[in-house]
């Protein structure tokens, strides 16, 4: 989600809430004989408000599970998640008097800091990366379907190359009487297309087929262009179309690889953010119950 003008209301509201909370905290911290404490009335108030903010932020996941419910727009939920989640950190700091306290509260504070920090990191990525991806990955596809599309690209490339190089897995040898004629045909094909066949089987196909294959010559667009240009000089002009097609397929593969890399950046932080958020809410409940009960 981009942080744009539509966030202005949330930003202003968050600043007001933060200002009011800061003013209350400063007055409270300076006048409280025992100093700021989570167990005092105002400290508890900060704790309750901060925890409610966290719960609201956590409800975004639940809201996504039931998109058909009329519970406000998804974008509003996301904005609330962003801003109230961010506000929960200073409010909880006010609750704790900027101390980490005991074992459970220290764990909670560390979790909160990690969750908020990862959330900020994710928000920044979500703000800046989509436009970059639009420019740099015009062939972007659904992340989960990349392997499937990649298989299609390989099949397409195989079909093109087999037309001139023959099948990659030739049928079993023919009966003895027809052996010579068969061999003569293959030899004819091979002599004109050997550079293409060798280049495809040795370089292009492994590059298209397997993401883990690192091919410096094909991984960079400029180098790949030079390599393909060199290949063209070795081939008759009627094969240049195939070379061009293979070059396009390699470009698609490069974009898929870039998309995978960007996707890991764009969503990898959620591996930390989501599980730790759930743990935070769970342990926060335990802390709240124990604190309010005793």
């Amino acid at each position, binding site marked *: 989600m981009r942080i744009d003008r539509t966030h202005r209301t949330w930003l202003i509201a968050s600043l007001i809430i933060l200002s009011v909370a800061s003013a209350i905290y400063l007055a409270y911290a*300076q*006048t*409280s*004989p*025992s*100093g700021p404490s*989570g*167990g005092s009335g105002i400290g508890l108030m900060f704790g309750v408000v901060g925890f409610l903010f966290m719960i609201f932020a956590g409800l975004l996941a639940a809201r996504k599970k039931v998109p058909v419910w009329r519970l406000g727009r998804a974008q509003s939920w996301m904005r609330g998640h962003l801003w109230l989640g961010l506000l929960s950190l200073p409010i909880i700091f006010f609750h704790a008097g900027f*101390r*980490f*306290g*005991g*074992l*459970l*509260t220290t764990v909670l504070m560390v979790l909160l800091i990690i969750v908020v920090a990862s959330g900020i990191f994710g928000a920044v990525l979500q703000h800046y990366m989509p436009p970059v991806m639009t420019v740099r990955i015009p*062939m972007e*596809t*659904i*992340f*989960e*379907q990349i392997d*499937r*599309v990649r298989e*299609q690209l390989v099949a*397409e490339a195989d079909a*093109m190359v087999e*037309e001139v190089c023959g099948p990659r897995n030739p049928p079993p040898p023919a009966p003895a009487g027809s052996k010579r004629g068969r061999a003569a045909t293959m030899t004819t094909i091979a002599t004109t297309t050997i550079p293409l066949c060798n280049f495809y089987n040795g370089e292009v196909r492994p590059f298209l087929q397997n993401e883990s294959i690192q091919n410096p010559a094909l991984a960079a667009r400029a180098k790949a262009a030079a390599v393909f240009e060199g290949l063209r000089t070795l081939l008759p002009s009627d094969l240049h*179309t*195939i070379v061009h*097609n293979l070059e*396009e397929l390699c470009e698609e593969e490069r974009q898929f690889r870039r998309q995978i890399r960007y*996707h*890991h950046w764009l*969503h990898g932080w*959620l*591996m930390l953010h*989501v*599980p*730790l958020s*759930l*743990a935070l809410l*769970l*342990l926060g409940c*335990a*802390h709240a119950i*124990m*604190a309010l*009960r*005793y």
Partner: protein
Amino acid sequence: MARAKLTTKTLAQRIDLDYFKHPHPFRRARSILSIAIPVIALLWLGWYALGRNNRVYSAGKMSSAHAVLTAKCSSCHVKEANSFSAKATDRSCDTCHSAPFHHANQTFTPICASCHLEHRGHLRLAVTADITCTQCHADLHTVGAPTQFTAEITRFNGGHPEFAILRNRGSDPGTIKLNHLVHLKHDLRGPNGPVQMDCEDCHRTVRPPAGWRFGSPQAQDATIAQTGIPPSLDTGRAYMSPVTYAKHCIACHGLQFDGRFQESAPHDTAEVIHAFLVQKFQRYIPNHPAELRVLAPHRNIPQKPIPPDVRVLTPQEWVDLRVAESEELLWRKTCAQCHALRFATNATLPTVVKSNIPQRWFQHAVFNHDAHKFQQCVECHVGAPKSKETSDVLLPGIQTCEKCHRGGREAAESRCFECHTYHDWKNEKPVKGTFTLSASAIGN
């Protein structure tokens, strides 16, 4: 062969429309983590619950003094209805501590835990915030009689009045005639020649022990019997050893009373001295009977010489005469050099006015000389080298303290607790221990 043109349609045809039914490993890993980590968190809490260990819910590290009780929450958090109460009650504190209340006429008594904040790490519990004091002293109200203290004290730097004795331009109540200027002058006549006296020759704490330069070898140091001092303060190091004749004066200020004796008179009451003198002369005269012959004062009349008038005294008459002469010397000169003596009309012996040397100037605060030993004495007691009168108050003013105790990170402590103690330790009561070593080691 040219590739088919990539249109939205052709691109869409690449996609398996049921792809979302088969989660990607990336998403699956996130789901697994989203279940695993909260479950681990629950197991972690459950582990403590199974062990009936509530330390996980502790609000923070215990203070150094109470660290040994970390595993024994119930020491302070008394169990109520089989559960721990969040607040440590005063009753729990009183189990181990006798902490007398502040003043009988205070308007309210805060609970122990509101000033001595526990679970804040390895801190000294006696270190309390100024606000714990100023919540009353910033606008002091009392129950019953109006307060005799300054009613508005907000902090030490700028919010604290001058010390009472200086504020009221009081004088030293001591009656010993002491001239600091004379005692600190160069080439002062000492017992064995000229000396240069130093402050430490008379003013030093009891600990560490050391002999006194101008004192009797038999003179014993004694700490000041003070009340209202917190138990944590070592008075032997904090306060100056009381100035006494035996420790500080005897070497120079001998109490010779008669040329016949090298011995000094005792430094005691007039009655004791009188008895001493009588005894001395009574023992002397039997061995020197010739001294009973006493010449009358010579009368020198021109042109008419008169033979000397010789009288022979009885031993008692001689003793009375010598005692009277010695006492005249002592009462009028030797003793009177330092002491004030009162001569009642009907009494034969004077009374020595009580020396009344203040041992502790701040009756409502504590001061620790040991903590200030790195300073030269005259840095604070500026007036001492020039003082001529006993009545001079040589106590430094609050501005002197504020030179170091000025607040802030790069200054000495300036919070209230540094000098003042809330508890009236005069009313401290003995505490009977209730803990056992084995119980202290068991959790909860």
